[in-house]
């Protein structure tokens, strides 16, 4: 039997799937080999994300160790690289506690609900040429829809735990997630306008100039919004170690805790992957027909490093300041960006509605000007709150001459 995928199949574009399918199809009936290769590629993806999350947890701990003038985990494996494995074994053997007053079903669903969107997002991200698991024509919309499951999971955790700290964390988490969803969506609209498509493959191929340059404000808004949705400093209010100890997942232990941690570290990687695809021209680079995956991983690594760097450097904002930052700063910024982009696209596009490289460079220059202007305006608005650095009402040095 020789099974061949026809171009009208949704998975036709996925090179890896086609290869597995045609290879397995030599042995098994076509319908069965379709299912087998589907499961195989799913296992690859899920385990890849989990392995990446484990690896990133070690990388981040080493990095933060260096930022702290410490060494970081270095005992188990070369440079401590097996530390995530040791953590996992330890957590598996710990007792899996459920509080007496907890809503048992909801409590148990949470770790899965946290981890699922992380894996699902990766389904539409192209790792290299023709390697997206599913080349959806509404990829951007799909990502936005899937990532908002997290807010439900956070609230479920807070509600089901029967713990007041968890409830604090959950209410904060939901407030943050809902507020930051709006500017994030608005910032992505600019990208979609320039690319002319919602399919991530098309977004990558449209980036003859990385959208980081064409859409600097959108990138900034998206980065800040994603940090907030990932619960990372300076927006880590839902966990807020010094205030709420662990926030919404305070009651979780054992494997459930391990899954929640994996979801958090994995979310950094998947968000980086989405950002790489949308703003850093995805897998493209020199020799990208062969080394696309390498470019993709390198770019993810750079962004993940920036995430760790930010995490090690900044104090946390207060909840009202955090929401004000979303509604008064990021939202206007993303709307200005959307408006400016729409006007530019209207004037620069050719008869087929596409933009060529020269147009993108001009747009990059204009958008950097707009970004600078916005920064100046917003900077002056908040200037009196933060400058001059020093006591608000003045201070002196007394020489203490007795009177």
């Amino acid at each position, binding site marked *: 039997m020789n099974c061949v995928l026809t171009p009208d199949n949704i998975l036709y574009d996925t090179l890896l799937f086609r290869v597995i399918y045609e290879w397995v199809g030599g042995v098994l009936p076509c319908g069965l080999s379709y299912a087998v290769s589907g499961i195989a590629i799913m296992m690859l993806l899920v385990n890849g994300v989990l392995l990446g999350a484990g690896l990133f947890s070690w990388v981040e701990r080493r990095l933060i160790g260096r930022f702290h003038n410490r060494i970081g985990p270095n005992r188990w494996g070369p440079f401590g690289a097996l530390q995530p494995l040791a953590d996992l074994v330890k957590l598996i053997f710990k007792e899996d506690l459920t509080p007496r007053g907890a809503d048992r079903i909801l409590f148990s669903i949470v770790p899965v609900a946290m981890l699922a969107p992380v894996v699902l997002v990766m389904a539409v991200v192209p790792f290299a040429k023709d390697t997206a698991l599913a080349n959806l024509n509404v990829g951007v919309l799909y990502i936005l829809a899937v990532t908002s499951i997290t807010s439900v999971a956070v609230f479920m955790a807070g509600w089901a735990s029967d713990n007041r700290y968890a409830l*604090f964390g959950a209410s904060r988490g939901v407030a943050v997630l809902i507020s930051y969803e709006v500017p994030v969506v608005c910032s992505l609209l600019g990208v979609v306008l320039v690319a002319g498509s919602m399919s991530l493959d098309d977004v990558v191929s449209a980036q003859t100039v990385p959208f980081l340059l064409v859409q600097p404000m959108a990138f900034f808004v998206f980065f800040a919004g994603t940090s907030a949705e990932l619960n990372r400093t300076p927006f*880590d*209010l839902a966990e807020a170690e010094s205030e709420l100890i662990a926030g919404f997942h305070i009651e979780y232990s054992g494997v459930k805790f391990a899954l929640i941690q994996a979801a958090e570290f994995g979310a950094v990687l998947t968000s980086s992957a989405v950002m790489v695809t949308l703003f850093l021209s995805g897998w493209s680079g020199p020799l990208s027909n062969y080394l696309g995956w390498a470019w993709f991983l390198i770019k993810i690594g750079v962004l993940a490093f920036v995430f760790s760097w930010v995490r*090690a450097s900044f104090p946390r904002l207060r909840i*009202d300041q955090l929401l004000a930052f979303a509604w008064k700063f990021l939202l206007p910024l993303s709307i200005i960006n959307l408006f400016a982009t729409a006007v530019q696209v209207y004037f620069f596009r050719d008869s087929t509605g596409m933009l060529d490289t020269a147009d993108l460079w001009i747009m990059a220059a204009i958008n950097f000007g707009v970004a600078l202007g916005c920064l100046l305006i917003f900077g002056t608005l908040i200037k009196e709150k*933060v400058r001059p650095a020093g*006591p608000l*009402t003045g*201070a002196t040095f007394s020489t203490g001459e007795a009177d």
Partner: protein
Amino acid sequence: MPIQTEPMTVNIGPQHPSTHGVFRLRVTFDGEEILEVEPIFGYLHRGTEKLAESRNYTHIVTLTDRLDYVSSMINNQAYCLAVEELLGVEVPQRAKYLRTLTAELQRVASHLMGLGFFLQDLGTLGTPLMYSFRLRERILDLFEMLCGARITLSYSRPGGVFFDAPDDFWPALDQFLKDFETDYQEIEQLILENEIVMVRTRGVSVLPLDVAINASVSGPILRASGLDWDWRKMAPYDAYDRMEFDVPVATGGDNYDRFWVRMQEIHQSIRIVKQCIEQIEPGPTRAEVPLILRPPVGAEAYGRVEASKGELGFYLVSDGGISPYRCKVRSPSLINLTVTEHILVGWKLSDMIVTLGSLDINMGEVDR
């Protein structure tokens, strides 16, 4: 239909990462806003004052180490000043300088720890904390050279200090002061002009001067509220009358001012240390005192120093025996903690944690 809400009471502590020891706050929240605060302490009570009544005067020095365990040197000094006043002993010059020098180094160490944990409470992931601990470790190394201990020092003894500084102490101190400039500048650059620190701390949890005075608050917290009040200037003890230094005084009384006063005091402490190195002369380091001290019957003395947290006092009454009839500790942390309710109500949960950090309490001293 209006949304039905009700206040929520939460116990912050006794096991909580930001209560600086075993301390509990029973807080009633309306959403995130604080309606009521009730500080509850006593979890670390060890009966230091009662224990002192059954130990001789030299042994009590070790009990004072365990009061504010991040500034033992200053506690020892305060207690020894009280005993010396009871006995009427004159301390040799070199011992006075050594005490001044070590007390100022200890103040730097204590303030560094306070700053580190203050920023930890603000939500940094330990970076400023690690930076300040790097410097604090150096100071503890110096103390180890002096007396073999790092935390519970017992360096000051009635009549002077335990031992003279070893020869290699002075080059190590010089090296520390040299490195201090750059390392401390790094901390200042990292945090002093950070916008998030500004918006989180300026104008938050203001302690008005009249409340501070009525509550008998002392130390950096009082100076941040606008009163120039420093016992090192007003009633100089040991070698402070020969030192030139300024007292930083802020007027706002908010979290940032308390934090700023401590940052500036570190600079002044280093100034004092440098003057001590210049002025110190060889000589004996301990007055001739008997092994077992017996102050006269009915003698009373109050030893008072400006500790890192505020005014630390030891009130001793003698009945002529080998141990005091009564030993009362006036601990600054306990008294500074009494204003919490006044400055916390109306602020948010996050502010509460930061305000506790800015008060820089130490539970060893609060519960005694």
